[in-house]
């Protein structure tokens, strides 16, 4: 580089090249002229760094900027609201016969969604059914998640014979057709909301366990785990405080889909008449209406729509969380 060129870069010749100092005060141009000066890798690094902030507010922000996820969140909020206000609007038993049967939706303003073959209010059933569906979905997922993470974390972190043993246990559950197992368990136990929840948790934990095990196996080899050991941390502390926060994103994403799966399983059980006979659920409403599908299709369609949209919203949230938390977007884990 000659001395004149150097002068140019220092801005002595004025007009042709802007010096970095003056450029700083300019608003950021969309297409910066000084591409060569700002190393491209440094720019990539900043954007990566922003995406990698493992901060709940950032995740929330990313979620809100995703229209699909917002749709999901809004609809899920409506379902939760329905579950919360159901006992206020319809304090009575939703299984009680309140009007003449086969009122079509809109026929009688007192029963906006009509009545079924026994004269039960469909809207009351759907609102109360949201309670059951959400309870089963959330509690079964919470149970399955807790147990699955515990087993998977133990297997993945310790390895060796503990891993072998736990993987065999997981495989035993995975070789059985899960829905058949669910039907058998519910048929043996009394079909109540809590036994159904427990049964669903029992058939879903192996998925979580496998996922958690894979994550823990990768992360336990990381340098920061060795560093944590060099600080005298015990196994429990390393598992729960050091590795688990790193393993959470894929687990959170899976859990939103698990809630949807649990709701579907409960509906399927109720549809087959294996649900809790004392509570109304979306599945049992469909099951009761299925023989009348040609004359009164709304009896199956309305609770069906409720299931479809709830499951869809949970899947949308799962997708959104996947984008917001996905390890591919974090630079290094």
């Amino acid at each position, binding site marked *: 580089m000659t001395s004149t060129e150097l002068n140019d870069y220092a801005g002595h010749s004025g007009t042709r090249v802007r010096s970095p100092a003056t450029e700083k005060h300019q608003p950021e141009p969309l297409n910066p002229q000084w591409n060569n000066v700002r190393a491209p890798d440094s720019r990539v690094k900043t954007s990566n760094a922003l995406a990698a902030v493992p901060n709940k507010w950032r995740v929330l922000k990313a979620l809100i900027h995703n229209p699909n996820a917002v749709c999901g969140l809004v609809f899920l909020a409506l379902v939760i609201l329905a579950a919360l206000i159901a006992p206020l609007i319809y304090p009575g038993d939703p299984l009680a016969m309140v009007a003449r049967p086969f009122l079509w939706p809109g026929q009688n303003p007192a029963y906006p969604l009509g009545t079924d073959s026994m004269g039960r209010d469909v809207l009351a059933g759907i609102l109360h059914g949201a309670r059951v569906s959400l309870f089963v979905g959330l509690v079964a997922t919470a149970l399955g998640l807790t147990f699955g993470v515990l087993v998977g974390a133990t297997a993945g972190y310790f390895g060796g014979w503990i891993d072998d043993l736990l993987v065999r246990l997981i495989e035993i559950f995975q070789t059985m057709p899960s829905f058949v197992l669910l039907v058998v368990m519910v048929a043996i136990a009394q079909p109540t909301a809590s036994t159904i929840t427990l049964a669903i948790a029992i058939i879903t934990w192996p998925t979580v366990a496998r996922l958690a095990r894979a994550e823990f196996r990768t992360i336990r080899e990381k340098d920061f785990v060795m560093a944590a050991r*060099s600080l005298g941390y015990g196994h429990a502390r390393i598992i729960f405080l050091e590795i688990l926060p790193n393993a959470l994103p894929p687990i959170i994403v899976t859990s939103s889909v698990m809630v949807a799966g649990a709701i579907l399983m409960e509906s399927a059980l109720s549809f087959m008449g294996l649900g809790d006979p004392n509570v109304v659920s979306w599945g049992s409403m469909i099951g009761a209406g299925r023989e009348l599908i040609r004359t009164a299709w709304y009896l199956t369609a309305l609770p069906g729509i409720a299931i479809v949209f709830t499951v869809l919203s949970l899947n949308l949230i799962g997708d959104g969380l996947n984008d917001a938390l996905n390890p591919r977007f974090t630079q290094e884990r």
Partner: protein
Amino acid sequence: MALPLLRVDNLSIRFPTTEPVSNLSFLVNEKETLAIVGESGSGKSLTALALMRLLPRSAKPSGQIVFAGQDLLKLEERRMRQLRGKDIGMIFQEPMTSLNPVLTIGRQITEVLQLHERLPAKAARSRAIELLDLVRIPDPQRRIDDYPHQLSGGMRQRVMIAIAVACRPRLLIADEPTTALDVTIQAQVLDLLDKLRRDLSMAVLLITHDLGVVAQWADNVVVMYAGRKVEEALPEPLFAHPLHPYTRGLLAASPRLKNNYHYKDGPLTEIPGSIVSAAGEKGCSFRPRCTVAHDSCANAVPDLFVPAANRLVACPYHASFAEEANVALVN
């Protein structure tokens, strides 16, 4: 002299098929820096892990590691955990990956304080800010809530140092602490380590392959080759008159020790060959690469000779090098 803080006696680390460290002995005195030098694969890092009892499960260490009067290899795991991070701190090579990426640095410093010193959360946080200040992180009140990826490599290594010295350990093991950093930062980090060593009166075990680092910061040097100690000396005599052929080769291959060396002056001398596994090797493990090897070198592992005070060398022909050096000195 008082008892040494750390005495390693005939430490061997055996894997099912190999023995990457054999019969290694050295001492670390209170408040002094011992440097262990050697090329990659010479067993330096395994030695460090053995001191912390963090070797992989398949490794079987034998010998004695006596730290402050207790044999670490015989200590029960619970006691060992209390020692790690409290009495012995360790810094790793890679500051980029040695910090937990999803926790703030403040959280990572306070955690060790709460574990070992049972400090309440508030006190731990103010200690953490002091520590960040001690390792010269600018604006520690603000930086304490940063995540590791928001810091540069040098700053991350300083955070690692802050975590390692948080509980004022008596021994700090630094396993190639500056390898991943660029040269200007290296000097800062090593200066910091040296300052902390004096301020907190700890001993430092510095593991490195950088002879420049050794010359500047070590009180005592152990040169390792293929899992064995080949030479031990104070830095000045070591650099002035290296006695083992390996050390001589290392120094000859090091550009910064020659005056005004420039690549146009011709290639640097190198040690022919590469480090070989000590397994199954009879005799001196350096023999295949040694320029002065005798037939007898193949028979047995050479004993450690004591050519002068504070000096050990594992080569029976060291006297000839000493002579050479004297001749050079006279000339």
